[in-house]
């Protein structure tokens, strides 16, 4: 493990503290001492220490009570209890309360070194485990950036070009186009790939929750803050932080975010210790962020800080040639996860998919394929299993105005822009039809 392990020694006897201090310092550990439980808890509230070696018999608060408080403060702390009066009861109680181990003074020198080495190994394994878990998540689905269309090839080229750098990236694109997959692909191809990719869905959190999520909080900072908690910026140290739906953050959070991006330091909610973290920022939005800057809804300085590189992920309707590949990919994915033989799709069903506009983009296509595999007969996906065509006509339009505009346009086209005939078909008078044509800016195409 690269970093130095830190140890806190808690014992009321000065000679014990001195002995342990000298012993561990010679082994290359960072060592701090406290003469009673109260001072130890104060130290632990101010800083993270890896291993706590504490005496059980101390005046005032005893070691077992202190163990409970340490565990309440930071439940993953490694606490080793020591005592000159070993009884099975206290040992069992200490272990039940979450102690890592229990030793009787004086120890054999070799036992002490082994004990600390084991604790250090446990810390290293837990940290490695966390990094690998984050890495697995970040690698998952990277292969689902499927596409051979020119639009998608352009995105892949951009990812390849910018991944090795440290530049901030804004990924834009409609909902469901795979912006998070692009962020994962950038991270997985960057030198930071062995460190975590930490995602935050800004839109899903209220301002105060987002603040605590990003910066972490100290125990008691607010109701419900029963533990000290690392924030996402801290967790993304050496890695990447992905801020999804960045356009939704409040003006106050924009200021805070700008400050963190400029200094790479922050303070946990309710804390006073400045923490630094080395992370790369990738943001995503389906809004026109530049337009929001113009309208005064998004800070210009933050926009330029984030928008060093912009990648626009095209909607599925602009890369229909990728649909067969994506269909094939999702069929394999869901057939495997549902333990079924890999199915195929009838050409008429595939054609239906290629003609569909997919307002929900790839997410919608993925859901369609998953549903088709679930409800299908287990042989081939047919048109019957696809929800396309069962929807209400015109369902691709969201607002009633859009529906009205397109319907009027279709009727005018049908009657060769004969206003009287079109008005009769629409069952409105001619004046109303003229008003609608003006309202929607319709014009006869040559």
């Amino acid at each position, binding site marked *: 493990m690269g970093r130095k392990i830190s140890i806190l020694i808690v014992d009321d006897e000065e*000679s014990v503290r001195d002995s342990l201090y000298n012993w561990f310092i010679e082994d290359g550990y960072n060592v701090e001492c406290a003469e009673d439980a109260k001072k130890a808890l104060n130290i632990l509230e101010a800083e993270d220490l890896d291993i706590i070696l504490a005496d059980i018999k101390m005046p005032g608060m005893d070691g077992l009570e202190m163990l409970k408080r340490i565990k309440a403060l930071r439940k993953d702390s490694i606490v080793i209890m020591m005592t000159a009066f070993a009884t099975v009861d206290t040992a069992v109680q200490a272990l039940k309360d979450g102690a890592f181990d229990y030793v009787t003074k004086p120890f054999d020198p070799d036992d002490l070194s082994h004990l600390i080495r084991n604790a250090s190994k446990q810390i290293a394994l837990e940290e490695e485990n966390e990094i690998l878990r984050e890495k697995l998540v970040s690698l998952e689905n990277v292969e689902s950036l499927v596409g051979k269309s020119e639009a998608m090839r352009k995105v892949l080229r951009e990812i390849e070009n910018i991944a090795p750098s440290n530049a901030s990236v804004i990924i834009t694109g409609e909902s469901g186009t795979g912006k998070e997959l692009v962020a994962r692909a950038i991270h997985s191809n960057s030198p930071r790939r062995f460190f975590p990719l930490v995602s935050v869905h800004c839109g899903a959190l209220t301002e105060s929750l987002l603040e605590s999520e990003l910066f972490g909080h100290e125990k008691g900072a607010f109701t419900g803050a029963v533990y000290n908690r690392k924030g996402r910026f801290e967790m993304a140290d050496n890695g990447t932080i992905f801020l999804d739906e960045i356009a939704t953050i409040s003006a106050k959070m924009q200021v805070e975010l700008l400050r963190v991006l400029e200094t790479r330091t922050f303070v946990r909610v309710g804390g006073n210790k400045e923490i630094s973290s080395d992370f790369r920022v990738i943001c995503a939005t389906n809004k026109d962020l530049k337009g929001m800057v113009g309208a005064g809804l998004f800070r210009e300085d933050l926009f330029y800080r984030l928008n060093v590189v912009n990648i626009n992920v095209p909607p599925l309707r602009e890369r229909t040639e990728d649909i067969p590949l994506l269909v094939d990919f999702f069929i394999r994915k869901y057939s495997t996860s549902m333990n079924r033989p890999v199915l195929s799709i009838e050409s008429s069903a595939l054609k239906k998919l290629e003609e569909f506009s997919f307002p929900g983009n790839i997410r919608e296509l993925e859901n369609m394929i998953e549903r088709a595999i679930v409800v299908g007969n287990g042989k081939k996906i047919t048109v019957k299993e696809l929800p396309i065509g069962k929807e209400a006509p015109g369902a691709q339009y969201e607002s009633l105005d859009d529906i009205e505009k397109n319907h009027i346009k279709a009727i005018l086209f049908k009657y060769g822009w004969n206003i009287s005939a079109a008005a009769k078909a629409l069952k409105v008078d001619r004046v109303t039809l003229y008003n609608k044509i003006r309202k929607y800016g319709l014009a006869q195409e040559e």
Partner: protein
Amino acid sequence: MPGKTENISLISFGYFDRGLLDKVSVFVEHELGFPVRIREGFLDLSEFYDPARRQYNGTSLLKKIESDFADANTKTLGLFNVDLFIPILTYIFGQAFLNGNAGIVSVYRFGNERYGMKPDPELLASRLRKEIIHELGHMFGLIHCTDPVCVMRSGSYVEDIDQKGHDFCNSCRQKLI
């Protein structure tokens, strides 16, 4: 605070074979590059004796060496032939202040006869030499080393001392310079 080191002082408390100390000091001087002085010291060890453990308190002895025998320009190492302990450990071979000017070493557990074997003066000299250089290494700021043959490797038993070498590994030597 330690000043600029000019020499190393080995102070023996209790009976020590002068020939053994002369021999060891040559190697220490060669390994650390500072002149080594040997002298005898006098100390009432009874105040450091713990009757319950029937051993001598190494932590208190180390502080005594620092306060009464060490000076700013000398790395001073007290040599003892009594069994040393620190409160948390059953015994120690030696101890020193990291980056400090004082250290202690005991030959008590270095003799083969203590382990039911024939006395071996050569082996005893080798163990003493390694332990003196090890504690001086700490006084020059070195921490324990993971290199199996480096003299700074930590050892809990005499077998551990026998297994390591007499010298610093390249990495520790670099840190000394």
